[in-house]
Structures are given as C-alpha cells and as structure tokens.
C-alpha cells in the first residue's frame, strides 16, 4: 500500500524516469542497428573482417557494464552523461546484432544462393534481393535480444549520470528509500517483460 501511495505522490518523477529511459534505449537501439547493419554488409564482402569484428565485440560484450561505463568516461568527447551511456549501449549491442545478422544472412539455403549467383546476381543484389528477405527472422531475433538487454544495462547508466529508471534505484540506495528502489525494479522489469512479449508476438507473424 505504501508503494501505491508513493507512486501517487511521485507519479511525475516515475513517468519522467520511465520516459528518459525509453528515449535512451530507443536512441541506442536505432544507432546500434544502423552500425550493425553497415558492419554486417562489410562482413558479407570481407569474410575475415566479419570474423574479426565478431571476435572483438565478443570481448567487449564480456566486460562488466559498470566497468565499461567507467572506462569510457575519460575518452575524448565522452565524459559523464547520456551520450557516453548511449555509446556504451551501442557497443554492447554489436555482438548480439552482428552475430545474429551474419549467421542469418549466411544461413540461407546454399541451393538458393547457387541458383541466384548462377543467374547473374551481383553480390549486392544477392544480399538485398535474397539473403535479407530470407533472414528476417534471425535479424528480428537479434534486434529483440539487443533491445531487452539494452533496457536492463541502461539501468546501470545512472551511475554515470545518464538518468532514466536507474536514477530511481541509485538515489533510493543513497537515501535508503525502499519505495524508490522497488519502483525502479518494477518499472525496469515491467518494461523489459512487456517489450519482449510484444516482440515475440510480432516475431511469430514473420515467416
């Protein structure tokens, strides 16, 4: 009951945290997908680059997020705040996106690829006319996984002053305010679960 009263008194605070969080996540996701898309196309033309990038980003992915946030702060153009947080989120996403995109595009039935090549499609035509339309599912799965993990990792971004739901938790911890902490957890988990469920539903519609 106390939890509900807290929300009634502070609904402005909660809504602002939620909307800041969603904004940060969406910007990070769009930039992530754009970057991963470009890198995937490069990887389709130069296989070794793809292997190398996947390897590098798998290392990035294994760095604990709070450490990566801290590491980025001293870099030129970074510092405290939302932009640094978004840069970190974009870096984290590359591994999951690249791996799903590249395996998806390479997973197209070899007979279809042979027929298309034999008919005289260029490598680029093969990608956009055949490979991409036939790997919508793995591409979408990659985006869903990236989105859900971004929602979670963005909580940590509050430590470097990026705001969002994480701020409820950090301030709650500092001031010993259990209601704040709980609301932070509820919003973060709720956002993650609802987004995931919605995307799984969309995914089923894709053949």
């Amino acid at each position: 009951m106390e939890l509900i009263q807290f929300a009634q008194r502070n609904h402005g605070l909660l809504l602002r945290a939620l909307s800041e969080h969603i904004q940060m996540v969406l910007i990070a996701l769009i930039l992530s997908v754009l970057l991963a898309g470009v890198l995937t196309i490069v990887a389709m033309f130069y296989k070794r680059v793809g292997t190398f990038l996947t390897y590098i980003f798998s290392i990035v992915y294994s760095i604990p997020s709070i450490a990566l946030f801290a590491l980025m702060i001293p870099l030129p153009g970074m510092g405290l705040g939302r932009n640094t947080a978004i840069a970190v989120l974009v870096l984290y996403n590359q591994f999951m996106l690249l791996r799903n995109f590249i395996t998806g595009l390479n997973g197209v039935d070899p007979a279809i690829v042979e027929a298309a090549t034999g008919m005289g499609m260029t490598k680029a035509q093969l990608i956009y006319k055949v490979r991409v339309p036939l790997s919508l599912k793995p591409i979408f799965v990659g985006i869903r996984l990236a989105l859900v993990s971004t929602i979670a990792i963005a909580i940590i971004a509050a430590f470097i002053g990026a705001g969002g739901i994480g701020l409820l938790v950090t301030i709650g911890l500092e001031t010993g305010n259990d209601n704040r902490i709980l609301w932070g957890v509820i919003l973060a988990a709720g956002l993650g679960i609802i987004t995931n469920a919605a995307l799984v539903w969309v995914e089923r519609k894709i053949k």
Partner: protein
Amino acid sequence: MMPSTTVAIEYQHVCKRFNGANYNAVNDVDLRIYEGEFITILGSSGSGKTTLLKMTNRLLDPDSGDIILFGENIRDVDPVLVRRRIGYAIQQVGLFPHMTIAENIATVPKLLKWDKMRIDDRVRELTVLVGLEPDEFLTRYPAQLSGGQQQRVGLARALAIDPKIMLLDEPFGAIDAINRLNLQDELKRIHGGLKKTFLFVTHDINEALKLGTRVIVMNEGRVCQFDTPENIVKNPTDGFVESLIRSCREQERFW
C-alpha cells in the same frame, strides 16, 4: 539433325584442382561443342562433370586452360555478365521461397531492367512452354508446388532471357521415374524448338543416351569418350565406358 558449324563452347586443355586435393577434378578437357547441340555429360560422382559445368558460367574458374563461348574467352569477361547470358538450372532448383512463381521466372529479366509489359508477356509464354497453366500457377509460391512442378519453374526461370546456352546440372535427379520421363520428353521438345546449345549433366546412363545428340563420358576428371549415343553403345573406347554400358544392359535383364 545437321549440326551447325558455329562453335558454341570450346574447352581448351581445361584443368581444375580444388584446394587441398592431390588430383585434378577436371583434367585436360579439350573439346568443341557446336551451336544447337544437346550435349549430355555422363559420369559418376567425383568424375568432374559438375565442375566442368560450373566453369562454363564462371561459378568456378579453371587453374589452366581456356573456355571460349562463341569466340569469346570468358576469362576476360565479368563473371556476372557471363552468367546473365547463360541459363542455369540445378537439381535442388533453388527457387526463391519469398517470391511468387511469376517473380521467380522474372528474376533475370528484372536484373536486366526489362519493362513490365515485356516481362509479363515473357513470363506467361515461358509458363506455357514448360507445361504449366499460367492463371493457375503464377501467383502461387514455390512451397505450394510439387517437386516436378518446381523443376518446370526452374527451367522457365533459366530460359527467361532466351539464352543461347543452357547449363543443366542433374535437373531431374530428385524427381520420380514417371515425372522424370515426362520432363525428359518436354526438355527434348523445348530444345528442338529453340536452336539452343544445351549442356546437361547426369549420372543416369539412360537419360544421357536418350537426351544427348552427343554424349561426354567422364571419369576421374578426364573425358573418356565424346560421341553420339549410337557410337558410344557400339564402339566404347575404353574399359570404363564399356563397363557403364554393361551395367546398363544388366539392369535390363530384370525385365
């Protein structure tokens, strides 16, 4: 049929060895194919017949030797352009599952940016040519067709821009005996009406002898014999061709 004197395909001492292998997959193939011939390439798996076929549209490149199509050395031509001039059909068909039958057949005309009217007319014409009813099939997707119907679409797609040369890699290999006979007859009919050069790979000796105006028999990368079906049956040049024909006769004994 009186063969034309125009050389459509010429292999000049063509050799191909795959990475890591210690033998040549195709070993010094040297022969000429004239325009309008229906050439079948007969051989068991590993004989190099598919490798020879794939070098003809530059899906593979020879290590040495040259391939000349209508007087032009294809080594000097962009592979994409070589392929767009040649029809290509394979056993697994490889239809695009996300496109309708009409879109599948229109693939190469679209790559060549034909206008829509011309594409539509050509697609209907081809559908009829391969024995399918346009109104019934054109809006369907490949998954809604039987194996035999899919291969008919594969042939239509390969014939789309009226290529002078058609490469067919065991196109009927996965089709049941009855449909296979029908498709063989129709392919023969299509060839007869079109004045095209067909290169047809198969491991089925009956199919090779039935369809080919001349037959290339391959074993271990080499051409054992290149002759008309009659001559191959009457005068096999070496033990391998002889054993092929004997095995075929032995099968007939069951009847």
